[in-house]
């Protein structure tokens, strides 16, 4: 497959080889799955035609329920019916300022909080995976076969821990993940491609539990994120909670049971939604004690009690504009995303700040999933008429290391375009020092204690030298998903001691493998057959791609290399119809290896062509 993606137009796969690619918006309140069908992005509805999947998971007596089925039990079984799980992704119990808001039995585990449910202690990753599994099943049914690739969206302001947790959840749900995509960027793709937009746009994305603002430049099919900012714990939920508190105060209620609390939160949300269309909303409820509640919430009161939440969204907006070195007047349009942007006071505040009415012609619930579907379709290699576009995204928060005195040394500043690699050299501070502790952090603050700790590791085996003589090169690498990899090497003596870490908040590969094995054990899928089928697909792709590449650029390989490639090809063909998926995988890897340098040279040639051929044309128009 090494050469698959750089095929010339004539080598495009035949229509029947179209990949089943989906975009998934894993939201705090609602989730969606979308795909591109006949060139158009569409949301995949359930059998009753409902596009949204409420983001609820219930661990029932007999089975795991999700979406509307789980929703039906949220007041009767609140401790086993999990809502807004996204707010807990990648978070420890100590991170949650509002832990008491949730009716769950929390288990304080290192790294990430867990919840004790009827089905055992569950991590937010596992609970999210249950939701994703439901979305995958909907897609499999709707598309008529297994999913080849998925793009899952995350809030742009999600940090490393939250991103890794989301990716782990997707893997656990058996989704072949193509990319994590930032939600506002997904919306910009959907909006920008639809409207053939050019210029600088802002995407204001207020979801159920997270707020993002992204500033993008759209130019000749390139979506370039200039800056992003946000608050990963601010969303429509908080507006519900304000109304909830208002109800308690207005009705002078004593402390509530989990069921009553959930009931009033639902009533609060309904009132909030009503107020987007009406000037007042009635709140009627009967508590388990028999007490009846009857209140009227006016738009004026609602606007007043949520005023500082709206104001709170404007701070990240200012910071993002400042980072992009732009003024509100430089923004050509403000795209509104997320259900919470239906609230009139939010629209008013945005209009006032930017001096123009925001763009509200898109369905704020669906636009993220649609953009993700377009991206998934492209990444999976399905060709469409208007797929000549490129996305350049950024990391939202600075990445750095702890240095002497607990001070953060930034290695990669926020809003750097990804992928990115950056190295910095450090040295020892004691004579004969043979190990160095490396602490990786994320955040904007000077003091390490105020940043998020991502990983700690030790570089050992440094040869004893006087203080300051060793040269330790620490390399940070952020991939296109925004995920970080850190490596450290001792350079001074040529003794190479390298260690690479994935930040510690995620699950270890072993844990994921075990969870996957457990979930397969309960499923009807035959793991072997599935693995073999996948390996065969991959084998076919790489054979086709290699042959095509050799046909076009064959002169780039010498006889020796050609012999190695031919041998690897023959070996792969021999194993193609066997039953050993591991052997087949190994053969695919061997062919990959044999074609690695060839692929590099093809890339070089393609770059050279790009620079010599196209640039002149592009400049002319």
């Amino acid at each position, binding site marked *: 497959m090494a050469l698959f993606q750089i095929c010339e137009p004539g080598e495009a796969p035949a229509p029947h080889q179209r990949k089943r690619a989906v975009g998934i918006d894993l939201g705090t309140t609602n989730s969606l799955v979308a795909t591109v069908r006949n060139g158009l992005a569409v949301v995949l509805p359930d059998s009753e035609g409902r596009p949204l999947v409420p983001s609820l998971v219930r661990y029932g007596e007999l089975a795991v329920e999700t979406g509307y089925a789980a929703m039906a039990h949220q007041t009767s079984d609140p401790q086993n019916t999990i809502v807004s799980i996204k707010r807990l992704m990648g978070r420890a119990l100590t991170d949650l300022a509002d832990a008491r808001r949730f009716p769950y039995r929390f288990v304080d585990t290192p790294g990430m909080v867990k919840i004790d449910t009827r089905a055992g202690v569950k991590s937010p990753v596992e609970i999210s995976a249950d939701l994703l599994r439901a979305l995958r099943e909907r897609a499999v049914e709707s598309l008529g076969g297994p999913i080849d690739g998925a793009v899952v969206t995350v809030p742009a302001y999600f940090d490393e821990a939250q991103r890794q947790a989301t990716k782990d959840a997707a893997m656990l749900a058996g989704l072949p993940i193509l990319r994590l995509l930032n939600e506002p960027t997904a919306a910009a793709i959907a909006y920008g491609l639809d409207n053939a937009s050019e210029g600088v746009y802002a995407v204001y994305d207020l979801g159920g539990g997270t707020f993002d603002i992204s500033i993008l430049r759209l130019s000749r099919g390139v979506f370039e994120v200039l800056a992003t900012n946000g608050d990963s714990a601010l969303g429509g939920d908080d507006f519900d909670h304000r109304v909830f508190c208002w109800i308690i105060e207005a009705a002078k209620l004593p402390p509530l049971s989990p069921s009553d609390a959930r009931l009033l939160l639902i009533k609060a949300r309904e009132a909030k939604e009503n107020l987007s269309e009406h000037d007042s909303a009635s709140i009627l409820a009967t508590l388990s004690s028999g007490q009846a509640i009857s209140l009227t919430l006016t738009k004026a009161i609602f606007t007043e009690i949520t005023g500082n939440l709206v104001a709170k969204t404007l701070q990240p907006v200012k910071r993002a504009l400042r980072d992009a070195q732009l003024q509100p007047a430089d923004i050509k349009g403000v795209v509104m995303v997320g259900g919470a942007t239906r609230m009139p006071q939010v629209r008013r505040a945005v209009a006032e700040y930017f001096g123009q009415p925001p763009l509200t012609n898109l369905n704020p619930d669906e636009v993220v999933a649609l953009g993700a579907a377009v991206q998934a379709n492209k990444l*999976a290699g399905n060709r469409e008429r208007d797929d000549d576009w490129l996305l350049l995204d950024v990391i939202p928060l600075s990445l750095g290391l702890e240095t002497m005195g607990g001070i953060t040394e930034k290695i990669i500043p926020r809003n750097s375009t990804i992928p990115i*690699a950056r190295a910095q050299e450090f040295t020892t501070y004691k004579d004969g020092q043979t190990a160095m502790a490396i602490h990786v952090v994320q955040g904007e603050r000077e003091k390490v204690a105020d940043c998020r700790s991502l990983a700690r590791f030790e570089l050992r085996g440094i040869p004893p030298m006087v203080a300051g003589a060793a040269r330790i090169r620490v390399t940070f690498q952020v991939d*296109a998903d925004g995920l970080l990899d850190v490596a450290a090497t001792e350079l001074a003596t040529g003794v190479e001691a390298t260690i690479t870490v994935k930040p510690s908040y995620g699950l270890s590969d072993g844990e994921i493998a075990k969870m996957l094995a457990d979930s397969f054990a309960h499923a009807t899928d035959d793991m072997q057959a599935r693995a073999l089928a996948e390996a065969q697909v991959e084998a076919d792709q790489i054979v086709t791609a290699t042959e095509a590449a050799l046909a076009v650029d064959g002169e780039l390989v010498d006889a020796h290399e050609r012999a190695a490639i031919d041998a690897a090809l023959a070996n792969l063909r021999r194993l193609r119809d066997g039953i050993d998926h591991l052997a087949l995988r190994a053969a695919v890897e061997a062919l990959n290896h044999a074609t690695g340098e060839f692929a590099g040279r093809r890339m070089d040639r393609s770059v050279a062509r790009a620079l010599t051929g196209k640039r002149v044309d592009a400049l002319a128009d």
Partner: protein
Amino acid sequence: MIDFSRNHFDLFGLPPSFRVDGAVLDLAYRQLQTDVHPDRFAGGSDAQKRVAQQASARVNEAYRALKNPVQRAQYLLQIHGVEALSETDTALPRAFLERQLERREQAADAQAAGDVRTLSSLLGDARAEGAALEGVLAQAFDSEHAYATARMHVRELTFLSKLAEDIDAMLAAIDA
């Protein structure tokens, strides 16, 4: 793989000069990313994805270095074998230093008083002086090839840019 030994200017097909046409740079950058970005190789092998990631990161690094005048100037010195900022030799003209230290003090006072107007005016001054220096640098680099002269101005520009950055951060803190 793209040739990692090529310098940033070469990579974008630009002459190694301080004056850079931003529009041409932007266009070359986007064209290169279109060809090497990992999104093009999402269905590729791990090796292919690794190559794409490295190539794309290299292009991002080069673009960032050429886009920013301070970094571009430092890079130009570097390719001419002149070290712009060494730890042992940090000399700057006395008058320049005095002017900047005075600005820093004024900025610190204004920050303490929450005086946005003074901070904005100081920021404007620092940026204007930086812009003037860029003109001087263009002359030194592109017309006179006077790298020793350029070196001193690059230090001044680096200093001014850090000052502007700090004042900007102060303004941001007041605004937040």
